[in-house]
C-alpha cells in the first residue's frame, strides 16, 4: 500500500486543523472503515516516533466486557488517549480497541467528533455505509404502503407502553444503587426484571451511563415513591423538585465520573438514528448481532438489524441520547433498544415488531409527527438561602418531529431553541423599546450615565 495516505492525513490534521475520525477518513478517501482505522494507527505511530512538531491528540474506541452492579455488560466507549489505559484496565475482557480520531486540538467534549462525522455522512447519505463493516441484506427501504401502516401502528402503542413503565420502575430499587456512578438506567430495569435470563441480555443495556433516564429512576427508588412514577414523568409536581435534587447530585457525580473516565458522550439532542446507523462500533455490532440472533428466538423481529444496531449504538453513545432516539423510534417508549433484551419484549412481541418498522421508517423519511419525549429541562429558582439554583431534570414533553425546537407552547425555558427564546424575548423587547422611545421625552426614573452626555 502506498504511503500517500500518510501525507493526506498529515495535511488534514496539521495544515487544515481538522479532526480526522476514521469514519470521515473512510468516506473522504473511499476506503473501508477498517482500512481507515489502520491508516490512522500508522499515522499516529509515525508521528509519535518522530517526536517532533505539533502535539497530536487521539481518541480511541474501546469495547469490552465489564462487571457493573453485579452483572456483566458489554461496554463501548470513546475515550481520550490519556484515559485509555484506565478504561482498559477496568474491563474484564477487552474486545476491541481502535483509533477513533486524530486531531491537534485537545477536545473538551465529544461534540466536535460528532460534528465532523455529521458532515461526512450528510454528503454521502445514500451510500454512507458503503465502507461500513455493518451489513444486513434484509435492510431495505420500506415501500410507501409499509410506511403508512407503520405510522398508524406507531400511534397506538404509546399509552400501553407507558403504563407498563411503573411496573418496571419498582424493580429499579432492587438493582440500582443510588450512588452508583453508572446507574442502571431503564435498561437496568428490564434486565433485572428478567434476571433469570442470560446475563448477556443485559450487556449493552448497561453500557454508557444513561443517567438521565436513570436519574429519574434512581431518585425515585431513593425516595421510595413508587406510588406515582407516572406523575413524575408527566406532571410538574413538587415531587419532581425533590427528585431533581438527588438528580442533580447524581448528575454532578456522574459528570465528574464521566470526565474522569473520559467516556465521551454525544448529546441527548443529537439527531436522528439515521446517523447512528452509520456508526463505528462495527465489531461490537457484529459481535452483538451474533448474540442477538441467539436470543432473538423469542421475539418476532423483522430483520431490520440496522435499526437494532442503531439502537444499540445509540445507547452506546451518550447516555442522554438513549432518550431521544427512543421516543423517535418508539414514541416515548422506555424500552431498551438492543436486540439482546428480547425478554422484556416477550410480553409484547407485537409492539416490538411494530417498533422496528417505525424506527426504520423514521430514519428514512422524517415524517412529521407529534410525540412525547423526555427532555432535560433546567429549572432555575431561588432557594431558601436566596441563591440561584439551576437544576436539571427530565420532563416529558410533546413535540413534533422534524423540528429543531419543541413547540412554542411547550413549557420550555432554557432547553427551547435559542432562536425561539431569543425571538420571543425580542418580541417582548421590541414592544418594550417601542414604548420606551415614545416616552423618551419624559424623564426616566433612574438617572443613567447617558443622561450625563445628553445634557449638551
Amino acid at each position, binding site marked *: 500500500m502506498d504511503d500517500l495516505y500518510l501525507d493526506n492525513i498529515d495535511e488534514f490534521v496539521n495544515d487544515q486543523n481538522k479532526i480526522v475520525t476514521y469514519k470521515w477518513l473512510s468516506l473522504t478517501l473511499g476506503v473501508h472503515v477498517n482500512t481507515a482505522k489502520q491508516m490512522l494507527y500508522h499515522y499516529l505511530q509515525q508521528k509519535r516516533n518522530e517526536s517532533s512538531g505539533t502535539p497530536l491528540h487521539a481518541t480511541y474506541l474501546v469495547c469490552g466486557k465489564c462487571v457493573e452492579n453485579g452483572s456483566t455488560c458489554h461496554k463501548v466507549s470513546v475515550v481520550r488517549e490519556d484515559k485509555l489505559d484506565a478504561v482498559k484496565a477496568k474491563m474484564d475482557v477487552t474486545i476491541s480497541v481502535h483509533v477513533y480520531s486524530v486531531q491537534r486540538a*485537545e477536545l473538551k467534549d465529544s*461534540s466536535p467528533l460528532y460534528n465532523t462525522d455529521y458532515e461526512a455522512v450528510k454528503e454521502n447519505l445514500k451510500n454512507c455505509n458503503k465502507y461500513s463493516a455493518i451489513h444486513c441484506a434484509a435492510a431495505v427501504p420500506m415501500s410507501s404502503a409499509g410506511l403508512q401502516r407503520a405510522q398508524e401502528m406507531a400511534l397506538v402503542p404509546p399509552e400501553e407502553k407507558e403504563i407498563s413503565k411503573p411496573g418496571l420502575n419498582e424493580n429499579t430499587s432492587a438493582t440500582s444503587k443510588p450512588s452508583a456512578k453508572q446507574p442502571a438506567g431503564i435498561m437496568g430495569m428490564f434486565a433485572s426484571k428478567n434476571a433469570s435470563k442470560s446475563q448477556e441480555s443485559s450487556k449493552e443495556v448497561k453500557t454508557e451511563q444513561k443517567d438521565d433516564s436513570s436519574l429519574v429512576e434512581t431518585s425515585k427508588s431513593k425516595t421510595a415513591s413508587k406510588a406515582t412514577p407516572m406523575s413524575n414523568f408527566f406532571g410538574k409536581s413538587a415531587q419532581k423538585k425533590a427528585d431533581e435534587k438527588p438528580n442533580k447530585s447524581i448528575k454532578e457525580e456522574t459528570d465528574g465520573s464521566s470526565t474522569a473516565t473520559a467516556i465521551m458522550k454525544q448529546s441527548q439532542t443529537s439527531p436522528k438514528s439515521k446517523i447512528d446507523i452509520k456508526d463505528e462500533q462495527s465489531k461490537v455490532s457484529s459481535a452483538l448481532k451474533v448474540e442477538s440472533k441467539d436470543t432473538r428466538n423469542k421475539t418476532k423481529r423483522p430483520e431490520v438489524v440496522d435499526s437494532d444496531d442503531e439502537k444499540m449504538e445509540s445507547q452506546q453513545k451518550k447516555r442522554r441520547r438513549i432518550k431521544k432516539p427512543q421516543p423517535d423510534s418508539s414514541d416515548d417508549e422506555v424500552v431498551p433498544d438492543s436486540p439482546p433484551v428480547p425478554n422484556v419484549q416477550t410480553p409484547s412481541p407485537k409492539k416490538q415488531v411494530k417498533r422496528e418498522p417505525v424506527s426504520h421508517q423514521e430514519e428514512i423519511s422524517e415524517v412529521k409527527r407529534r410525540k412525547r419525549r423526555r427532555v432535560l429541562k433546567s429549572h432555575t429558582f431561588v432557594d431558601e438561602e436566596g441563591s440561584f439554583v439551576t437544576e436539571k431534570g427530565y420532563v416529558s414533553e410533546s413535540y413534533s418531529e422534524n423540528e*429543531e425546537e419543541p413547540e412554542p407552547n411547550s413549557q420550555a425555558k432554557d432547553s427551547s431553541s435559542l432562536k425561539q427564546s431569543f425571538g420571543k424575548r425580542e418580541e417582548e423587547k421590541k414592544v418594550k423599546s417601542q414604548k420606551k422611545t415614545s416616552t423618551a421625552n419624559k424623564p426616566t426614573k433612574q438617572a443613567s450615565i447617558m443622561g450625563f452626555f445628553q445634557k449638551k
Partner: protein
Amino acid sequence: MATLTRQDLNFGQVAADILCEFLEVAIHLILYVREIYPSGIFQKRKKYNVPVQMSCHPELNQYIQDTLHCVKPLIEKNEAEKVVVVIMDKKHHPVERFVFEISQPPLLSISSETLLSHVEQLLRAMILKISVCDAVLDNNPSGCTFTVLVHTREAATRNMEKVQVIKDFPWIVADEQEVHMEEAKLIPLKTMTSDILKMQLYVEERTQKT
C-alpha cells in the same frame, strides 16, 4: 424562521436573525472552549443539528442576549462591521480577540431553495472550527473575563447612545485599551460566503499572555 414565500420579505431581517442566533451560540462556545467560565455551567444543546455547549447561568445568558439584541438593529441596516469577543486578563488587558467580520452582499436575495440548509452547513463548519481553535491558540491565564465590542461603519453608534434599546443596558464607547492589543498575532479560523451573509472569523492573540 419567517416563511420565504412573500416577495416583500425583509431579507435584511432574516439575515440578521440568523446571524444573531449564530453569534449567541458562538459566544457561548467561545466561553466554553477558552474556559472563561467553569465547564459545569454549560449544558449540551442542539443547534444546526449538532451538539453545542450553552451556558445555563441565567444572568450570563441574559447578558449575552441583551448584547445581541442591541446589535441586531445595526446588523439589519448593515452598519455593523465587526463583532468582537474580547477576552481580557485580570488587568483588563485583552489577551485574545475573536473577530467576526460581517458583511452582507449587496443584492440580498433568498432565491435558492437549499439556501438555508447551505447556510446551516456553513455555520456548522464555523462552530466546528471554534471547537478546535485551542489547537492554534495558547492557553489563557486564569481569571479572564470577556466583553463584546461592536465596530460600526460611520457613526451609527451615536444613535445607540441616545436611544436605549434595552433599558439599563447602555452601550458606551470602548476604551482604547480594550480595542487595541499589543503584539497581536492574527490567526484566521474560518470564512464563509453565502447569498445572505458573508462572515470571516479570525483570532487576534497577544504573543505573551501572562
